[in-house]
């Protein structure tokens, strides 16, 4: 079960489970995080206040992953610059769906939210890998994919077994039969660097 509610607020159960769950990366604990009041990064994120994304010290990282060294992701920013993202026992990972850090690959795109550490890394509270949320128009519909126009570019959307659709503001359904060519569609999904297509997690069409 996904422990996050539909509004993206981590549930109390999820917070507690994160703290109690063994490290996905096997001992990624960072010791001596003075920026977090002397706590290590894992413990800091497990504590109630540090999960508040509005904390003043929150950092954001965007870019492509150029290397993975242990539990650290090397990230090249799209506007230049370089960042190092430290995965911890409590980092939540999304890649098509909530998952674990072992699915992260060099070449993936990334958004990460975390806390700056004294060593220059960003200890991640959450990383979203290859996530996109595109304003598109449906140009074609096939059995396992939809063809989308995004600005002046065409994007192929791969339909997954659990792709959901929302029609005119209503709730999510597995019924994709009401998609129509020409409709505006917001596509939440995951970009595939290998072929530049997008795995469609949720497609929302308007009026």
């Amino acid at each position, binding site marked *: 079960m996904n422990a*996050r*509610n*539909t*509004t*993206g*607020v*981590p549930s109390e159960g999820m917070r507690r489970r994160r703290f109690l769950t063994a490290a996905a990366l096997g001992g990624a604990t960072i010791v001596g995080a003075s920026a977090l009041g002397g706590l290590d990064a894992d413990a800091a994120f497990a504590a109630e206040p540090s999960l*508040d*994304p*509005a904390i003043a010290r*929150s950092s*954001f990282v*965007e*870019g*492509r992953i150029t290397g993975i060294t242990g539990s650290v992701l090397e990230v090249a*920013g*799209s*506007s230049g610059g370089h960042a190092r993202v430290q995965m911890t026992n409590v980092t*939540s990972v*999304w890649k098509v769906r*909530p998952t674990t850090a072992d699915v992260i690959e060099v070449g993936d*795109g990334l*958004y990460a*939210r975390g806390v700056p550490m004294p060593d220059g890394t960003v200890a991640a509270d*959450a990383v*979203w890998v*290859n*996530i*996109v*949320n*595109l*304003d598109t128009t449906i140009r074609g519909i096939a059995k396992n994919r939809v063809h989308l126009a*995004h*600005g*002046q*570019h065409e*994007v192929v959307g791969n339909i997954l077994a659990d792709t959901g659709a*929302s029609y*005119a*503001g209503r709730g999510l359904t597995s019924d994709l039969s009401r998609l129509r060519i020409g409709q*505006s569609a*917001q596509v*939440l999904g995951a*970009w595939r*660097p290998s072929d*530049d297509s*997008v795995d469609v*997690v*949720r497609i*929302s069409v*308007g*009026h």
Partner: protein
Amino acid sequence: MACGSTSLWAGETSWFCCGNSWGPCGSAGGGACGNCQSSAHHGAWPNASAACFSITRPDLCGENIPRRGCGSVMNVRHQCSGATVCITITDCGPRTKDWCGEATCCNGACRTNRVLDLTPAAFSAIGNLSSGKLPVYIYE
């Protein structure tokens, strides 16, 4: 300009990419104001200009959203968590008219109609990108 605390609007916010980026977002460009960046605390407002309003038409959903142009500053607060981010308007959007009646809820309280788009940096400061939408209060 500092972020204020005077209530301006409430509704749904989604997120979008702009500026230099990867994947399909790489071609998004700098938005209507020319300086939108995914990695900055930026946002898109459906009445950033008359031309913008003619595209987004929030009035068709009963949202008589006031004009706030490029460079306007807003404080955006998650309806339930209280997490807040200060943003600068750098683009036009979302197309509110396409989503009339759409609601996003938390703790049993819902906000209706898409009235704001946030960059990934701004959206992730108050919620999780995988949720796609958040119910928010907007201040200036």
